[in-house]
Every structure is written in C-alpha cells, then in structure tokens.
C-alpha cells in the first residue's frame, strides 16, 4: 500500500520529517522522463550483467533465464547500458516509435 503523495494535515507529518519507509522513492516513477528506451536483443546477449552494473537507476534486472531488461517505470533512457554493452545487444529506440 502506498502512502498518499503529500501528508494532508500537519499531524500526518512525521516528527522531524523522518522517513520510516526505506526505498519508498520507488513510488515516484521516473520512467516518464524518457525520450528513448533500451531494447535488448537476446540473440546477441552474453548474459554478462554489465548493463545491470552500470545502470544509475538500478532498474535493470535479470530474468529467470539470465537475460536482462529494464524496468520501464524507472528507466530514464540515459543510454549507458546500450553504450557499454559488449556485444552491442542493446539499442536505444525513440519513445514515440
């Protein structure tokens, strides 16, 4: 259950503006910032995990078969994964396409 975006009343603000929900920034979906998105070509992917390593968002995860993909809720489309991919298995395509 996600908390309301803003506490509505002053009584709802935690003392000292302390945040007791670790990792709750994930409620904010930065994926809307994207202009391009990464597409993985699993035929070329060598499952090395370098894209996972270099993602500043930490939104690239490994699936059951060992291939990788970006969580589009958070991917900002920076292109680092595509740029660093050794076998060039990732391409950046425009969001509108």
């Amino acid at each position, binding site marked *: 259950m996600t908390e309301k975006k803003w506490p509505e009343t002053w009584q709802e603000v935690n003392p000292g503006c302390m945040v007791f929900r670790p*990792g709750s920034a994930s409620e904010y*979906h*930065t994926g809307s910032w994207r202009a391009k998105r990464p597409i993985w070509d699993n035929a070329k992917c060598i499952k090395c995990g370098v894209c996972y390593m270099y993602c500043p968002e*930490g*939104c690239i995860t*490994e699936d059951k078969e060992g291939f990788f993909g970006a969580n589009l809720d958070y991917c900002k489309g*920076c292109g680092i994964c595509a740029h660093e991919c050794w076998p060039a298995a990732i391409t950046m395509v425009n969001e509108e396409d």
Partner: protein
Amino acid sequence: MSTANLNPKKRFENFELYVPKLIEKKEYFGPGHRACQGCGEALAIRMMCKALGKDTVIANATGCMEVISSVYPTTAWSLPWIHVAFPNSAAVGSGVSAALKNLRRKGRIPDRYVKTVAIGGDGGTVDIGFQALSGAMERGHDMLYVCFDNEAYMNTGIQRSGATPFGSSTTTAPAGKASIGNKTWKKNVAEIMVEHGLPYVATACHSYPIDFMNKVKKARSIKGPSYIHCLSVCPTGWRSTSETCIKLGRLAVETGIFPLYEVEYGKYKITVDPPEKLRPVADYIKPQGRFRHLAPDQIKGIQERVLMEYNKLMNKVKHSKSWDELKAL
C-alpha cells in the same frame, strides 16, 4: 556506439566480465531517485552501498545526492541515513561513530559492528566541508569518508569548486574573451588525507566498479579513519552526453588525469594500470562541453601539467615505503 572492441581479451583473462553476477543484489540506493539521466554520482553511490552492505549508517552532506534521494515523504535509501547541513557530514559522521561505539559498549544496541560512512560532494568535502573533514580525520574516528567528486557545485547550478579542473567553464568561473574559465589546478584532497596519516586512502571511479567496490570493502574493514575520492561524471555539468558517462571516467584514468591508486599504511599502489602510453588529454577534453572553449595551445599546457602530476604520483609509488618498512629502516 558500443565498447565491444575495448580490450576484451585482457578482461576475459581477469574474469572481470562476469563479476557483475557476483555482486550484492540488493539495491540499497533504489530507483525512483530524481538524479539526472546518466548521473555518474548516483551510480557510484549505488555501487558503494552494495559494497558496504546492510550494517552501515550514512551521514550525507547537502548536495545533489541528498536532495534527489530524500524528498519527503519518500527516500531512496534502504540504509539508515542522516542529513544535517552542508559543511558538516564529517562532523555528523564523527558523532554517529562515537555514539554507535558507546551504545554498543553499553549494550543499548545489538553487539555487532556497524560502519559509519560520511559522504559528500566535492563542495561539501573540498571547500565548505574541508574543516570538518580534516578535523574528523585527524581525530581518528572509525569512519569512512567518501567524496563524490563531480568537479563543481552541481546541485546549485554548476559553480566552481576547489576540485574544478583547470580550464573548465563553470557558472562562477566562466570561459570568455578575458578568461580561460577556472584558473586553478584541482585541489588534491587524497594527498592531503595521506598526510593526515590515515591508514587507508584511495582514489576511485565508477567506471571501474570492481576496483571501486573492492576499495570500499577494504576501507570498511579498517577500524579507523579512511578516505576514498571517487571521480563521478556529471553529464549535465560537464556538458557531455548521458550515455558517455562511463566512457569519460575511463578516459580520465587512461589519460593519466585521474590515476586510480590506494595508499595503505603509507604504501602507494596503483590499482588500475593505465595504458603503457597514456592517451592524449585531448581525447578526454573533446567530448565535454565545459572545455570546448580551449585553444590547442591551452590544451597543450594542460597536457604538460597532467603529465607532471602523473609523474609526481608515479615517483611516489616507486619510492613509497609502508609505515612498517619505514620503522625498520
């Protein structure tokens, strides 16, 4: 644009290619933070947290990372985290470290080791936070300090800091007809920390993640003060493209501008070997918009100075002796 042809044979031999699968999976610095696209500093913090693990308390100075990660009522951190003000993350860290030590001794917190890590940007470390850093390190608190150096006060709009490189254009030291931009050389805080007598000092970069994370792990194991200076590429402030973030960090090392080394108990050691023949600094300068005003003779001047600083470090490495070796002389 891929790095597919970059020295694959050497990497394969070192099995570095598949190491990403072995690192800590939990995201202690999770997605949803408001960093720019391609932010090197956010990536560095993500890596640092993976190397530190769960039993860590972070004291953060005001700056990019604090602001983008802790927008009330959310936080990107899954580690205990405190932010007070701009110049005092090292002082806050000293307090946290002392409190954890005392409370553990008194049995008021569980009896296991929790590491205190104070972090700050180059502003909060090299300039406004320098006094607190020097004081905390001199007092020898059991604390790791990591400086995430993106070479300007990025959070407030790319103003010049003590860590801004020579010739770079910032909003308070801009390039123009009457100025080359920043007129001074980068302050070498890592060397200043070595002179504070710290048992462990290192430079690192997020483009060499395994090296960086190993250094963080090593610093974590030191029961005393330690310092890591991590170069963090800022595409927004350096006016480079977001996807070349990692590449620029690599170029900084390969041109000798930012050598990666560590000083353990006084002994210098290069941890990432630069190529036998250093790449020309122009390769590093060209992709960055903050240097685009530089004329060839100015770049030549920078090349000479970079080479001089690099040789100075190599000389130290060659002749360095650890504290034990010095005692036995």
